[in-house]
Structures are given as structure tokens and as C-alpha cells.
């Protein structure tokens, strides 16, 4: 169940980090500690949701950024573009203009990621997850959150391929005559998708040849649109490109999935709402819900960490566009999909995700039990203010770290101010000079 090879797309820039604790307090899995005045992210617990980056006042969290020049490794360059990318541009630019600028920055073929929604429909893909309510695997940050924090809900995660994966398979299948010189690239609105793609052995790693961040592509496209106004003005032929249905275009918006399910369904967006809801759901014994759409970002993918435009405006724009789209796919596209259907045979479902047992205090259960008792006793001695000055997000987290010998009680500033003598004797009981969470010797004592 270990996955040591999981790649993370977020990184702390030590020079910029002031150890201000904002990120630590916000992290949904408690993955961040402050040691020696700098934030440190646990690779085991991080789900690449990007909340730390969003909240950092010092721009000290960096996201991996691959250059656009990677396109040049291939003769034919396919872009799998999620619809929210087109909504990054104000109404003054049409989809067609953005599209032609995308070709101009180096793509030779463009597919809309959301077409995958319709492909799954046409091929009548069947969900294989066993437990109800089904929890959509659409948001990779949510999927990882569940694997780490809610192991009891892992079997509820859906197993159908994501629309972007399906579209990638479709594109690859349609263009297979181009052979090795064909590269497939995904435009990502968030950190979690980068992490997924860069993890060796993942489906994304297998299907895509590269990943380009929304903001990178946005800047390139905007530059072209601004430089060559006249050229693009002539391509003003309205909203013609998206080869998908109305419901598919709305897929990544809040309620985009849940409103198209049979049976009772619910959509929850924004990480803290999602956590509040999953806490309840994991305790729930029975539920009449059949489907859950959980989005880590507020308003869904348009709220992704790499988006440029205000998420409410982007949502409105996508909804507006979607009203111009048909409810059924055009016949020629249906035929194109059916021709490629052999590529999808036994290839629409993913392997069941596994729970990751990383919340435990120790791999050895008898040691974990001892540590659990220790946490109780240490917690009783702590002030319970959850100020974060010790470098842990809460008094409970400090107690757990001390029990795991990854922190010292001397880190508690409140105890130090209140009664230095008592702190000294407490610290002696729980061990002196332990190592901090990132394995360094703690010199703060």
C-alpha cells in the first residue's frame, strides 16, 4: 500500500518562506510543519491540492512549470484542452480566436477534454465501484484525500477513466498512423493533475507525453492575441469548435456531474467543505445518496490554482457557451467515436484505488498503541490554543509529533512563557532534542 514513488508538484522556496504558518494552518491533511523557520511539506501526506500555494502571502510555494518548448520534441502535437481554459479569456476573444492562437503556439491537433464525457456515454461505459454512494474520481486531489484521510471510503471511489484520459485514448487511436512522432499534451488547471501525470506508473503518465500549466499557455496565447489583433479578428466566426454536448461542456463546473446522474446526487466544492462532508459521510451508516461529486477547488476546475480569471466569471461564461451547444453529439462525431471503439474495449475502467495507511502513529501496532496513550498524556499538558507557534498546526499535532519523536515539547511557546521550569521537566519526560519532522536535529530547544 505504500507509494513512495508518488510525485509532488509543490515545493517550498526556502529563500522566500518566512515560516508564517499560513500554509500549515490551511493544509487539509496536516502535511506541513515549520522547522527552523521554514515550511516543510511531508511527501507522504501531501495531496497536491495547492491550498498552501493559494494562501501563501510570500509566494514561497512553487508549482512545477514545464516550458512550452517541450512541444518541439514531436512532429505532431496534440493538445487535450479542458473547456475551462477557453473561459480564461474575456468575452472580447471568441473561442475560435483562442483556438487558432493555440494552433499558433505549436499544437497541430486540438481535442476538447470534455469530449471524453460523451465518448463514455456513447460507449455505454459501466461504473464498477461497489459501495454506494459513488464518489466521483474526477478530482485527483479529492481521490488522494480519500486514500489518505478516509480509508473507509476508498471503495466508494468511481473507477471509470476521466474524460481527459478517454479523449487522449481517442486522439491516440484516431491519429495512430502518425506513429512515434505523435505527442499528446494536457493543459492543467491544477497542481494535483501535474502530480498525477508526473508519477511514474500512473495512467496519466502513460497516456500523456507532457503537461502544460494553464497560466503558461494563457500567457502565450494572450501574447499572440494582443500582438496580431487583425489576423485573429478575421477568425471571428462565433462559437463553433467544441465537439461535445451541452452537459459535457459543464462537466468540470460544480453540479456538472451530479446533475446528470440517475438517483439522488450531491455536489460539494472547496476543500474545507469537502472535508466537513467526508467526515460525516464516513460515519454515516446508511444513505439514500447514490452519487457524490466532490471538487477540491471552489467552483470546480475553474477555481484551480493555475487559472487566471475570476472563477465566477469563468463559470458564467462556460454556462453561457453551453446553452449554444446541442444536447446530442453530431452524427459525424458519433461515427468517428464508434470507429475507434476497439481501442476502448476493456479499457474504460481503472484499477481499484487502494487506501494509503499513512495516518498511523507507527507501523508496529503495539508501538502505535503506546504512542496513542502518550499523545493523550502529552495533550493534557498542552495549552490547547492551537496557535501554531511551535511549528505544528495544532496542539494535537504537536502531541502526536512528540509521541513519534519528531518534535520536542520545548517547541511550545505558551508553556515556555507560562512556566519555563515545568516545561523543562515535561520536556525531560518526553525526551530531549528529538529530530524534527524533516529529520533534522531540532536546535530550537
Amino acid at each position: 500500500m505504500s507509494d513512495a514513488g508518488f510525485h509532488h508538484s509543490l515545493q517550498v522556496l526556502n529563500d522566500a518562506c518566512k515560516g508564517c504558518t499560513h500554509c500549515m494552518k490551511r493544509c487539509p491533511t496536516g502535511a506541513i510543519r515549520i522547522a527552523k523557520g521554514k515550511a516543510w511539506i511531508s511527501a507522504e501526506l501531501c495531496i497536491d491540492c495547492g491550498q498552501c500555494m493559494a494562501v501563501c502571502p510570500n509566494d514561497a510555494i512553487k508549482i512545477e512549470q514545464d516550458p512550452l518548448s517541450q512541444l518541439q520534441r514531436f512532429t505532431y502535437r496534440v493538445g487535450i484542452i479542458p473547456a475551462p481554459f477557453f473561459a480564461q479569456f474575456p468575452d472580447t476573444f471568441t473561442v475560435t480566436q483562442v483556438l487558432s492562437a493555440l494552433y499558433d503556439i505549436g499544437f497541430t491537433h486540438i481535442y476538447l477534454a470534455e469530449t471524453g464525457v460523451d465518448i463514455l456515454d456513447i460507449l455505454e461505459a459501466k461504473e464498477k465501484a461497489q459501495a454506494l454512494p459513488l464518489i466521483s474520481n474526477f478530482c485527483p486531489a479529492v481521490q488522494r484525500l480519500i486514500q489518505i484521510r478516509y480509508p473507509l471510503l476508498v471503495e466508494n471511489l468511481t473507477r471509470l477513466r476521466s474524460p481527459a484520459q478517454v479523449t487522449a485514448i481517442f486522439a491516440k487511436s484516431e491519429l495512430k498512423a502518425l506513429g512515434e512522432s505523435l505527442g499528446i499534451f494536457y493543459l492543467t488547471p491544477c497542481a494535483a493533475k501535474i502530480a498525477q501525470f508526473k508519477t511514474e506508473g500512473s495512467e496519466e503518465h502513460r497516456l500523456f507525453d507532457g503537461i502544460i500549466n494553464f497560466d503558461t499557455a494563457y500567457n502565450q496565447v494572450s501574447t499572440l492575441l494582443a500582438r496580431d489583433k487583425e489576423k485573429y479578428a478575421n477568425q471571428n466566426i462565433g462559437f463553433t469548435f467544441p465537439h461535445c454536448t451541452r452537459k459535457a461542456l459543464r462537466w468540470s463546473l460544480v453540479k456538472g456531474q451530479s446533475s446528470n446522474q440517475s438517483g439522488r446526487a450531491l455536489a460539494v466544492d472547496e476543500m474545507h467543505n469537502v472535508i466537513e462532508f467526508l467526515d460525516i459521510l464516513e460515519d454515516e451508516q446508511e444513505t439514500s445518496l447514490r452519487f457524490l461529486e466532490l471538487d477540491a477547488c471552489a467552483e470546480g476546475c475553474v477555481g484551480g490554482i493555475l487559472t487566471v480569471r475570476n472563477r465566477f466569471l469563468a463559470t458564467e461564461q462556460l454556462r453561457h457557451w453551453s446553452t449554444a451547444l446541442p444536447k446530442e453529439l453530431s452524427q459525424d462525431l458519433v461515427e468517428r467515436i464508434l470507429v475507434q471503439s476497439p481501442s476502448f474495449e476493456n479499457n474504460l475502467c481503472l484499477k481499484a484505488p487502494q487506501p494509503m495507511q499513512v495516518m498511523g502513529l507507527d507501523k508496529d501496532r503495539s508501538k502505535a498503541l503506546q504512542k496513542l496513550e502518550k499523545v493523550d498524556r502529552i495533550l493534557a499538558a498542552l495549552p490547547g490554543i492551537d496557535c501554531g507557534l511551535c511549528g505544528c498546526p495544532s496542539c494535537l499535532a504537536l502531541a502526536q509529533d512528540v509521541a513519534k519523536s519528531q518534535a520536542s515539547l520545548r517547541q511550545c511557546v505558551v508553556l515556555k512563557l507560562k512556566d519555563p521550569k515545568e516545561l523543562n521537566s515535561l520536556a525531560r519526560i518526553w525526551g530531549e532534542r528529538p529530530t524534527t519532522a524533516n529529520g533534522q536535529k531540532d536546535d530550537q530547544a
Partner: protein
Amino acid sequence: MRQEYLVPAQDFSVAGVASSNLKRLLKQLNINPFTIKRIMVAVFEAEVNVIAHSYGGRIVCDLEEEEITIQVIDTGPGIPNLDLAMTEGWSTASEQVRELGYGAGMGLPNIKKNCDHLTIQTKAGEHTHITMLFCLKEGE
């Protein structure tokens, strides 16, 4: 390690609080999620029983390396006919309790189904003392 939770009578708003707190502890012990689920279902049912039928009680959890023992001890009417109570669908719950969605007569049968060993001591008009045992050995 021993952990105790008090369960008040007739307060359905706190049904699940004890089992949820217990779950938080179990997750820290690297216990297989399927085992945690079994424990949760059994403890939740017992918790609801105490709330619905008794005059109040407590849940005593003993966490050990290879097994978890959970005792649910209440004062109350006791279980007059244990065989009947173990029958699926048989319930003495009041109309009021059933309106809340509880009292379907699956409590004790569900507890039995989910734990590895169950003993029930009860005296009509006095108390009920349920002891559930869960083995933690992998591949049980």
C-alpha cells in the same frame, strides 16, 4: 489502552459521536479499513440501542495489539427475551424512535454479524452488558 465514552438516554442528536471518536483512534493504529468498518457498524448499533432503550450507559473500549474488546454497559429495562432480540426485524422500539429512522430490529443481528465474538448479559428491568470482541490479525 482503555477509552470510555458516556452515552446519554434518548438523545439521538449524539448518536454516532462515540463511534466516530473511536474511529479517530483506530485510524492511528494502522488497522485495516475493513476491520475499522466492522467495528464502526457494531459500535454504532450498540450506541443507538443504549440511546433508544436504556436509561443511559457507557462504552468501554480496550485497545490491544491483537484484539479490541468493546463493552457496552447500560442501566435500563434489559432484554426480556434475548432469542427474539437476536431475530432480524424484531424490535421493541417505540413509535417515536421508529419515526427517527431507528428501531428497524437490525441492531443486535448487525452487531453479531460484524464482531468476532459476542456475549450478552442482561437482566430484565435492570441492565444490559454487551461484550464485543474484534480480532485484528490480518487475514481473519
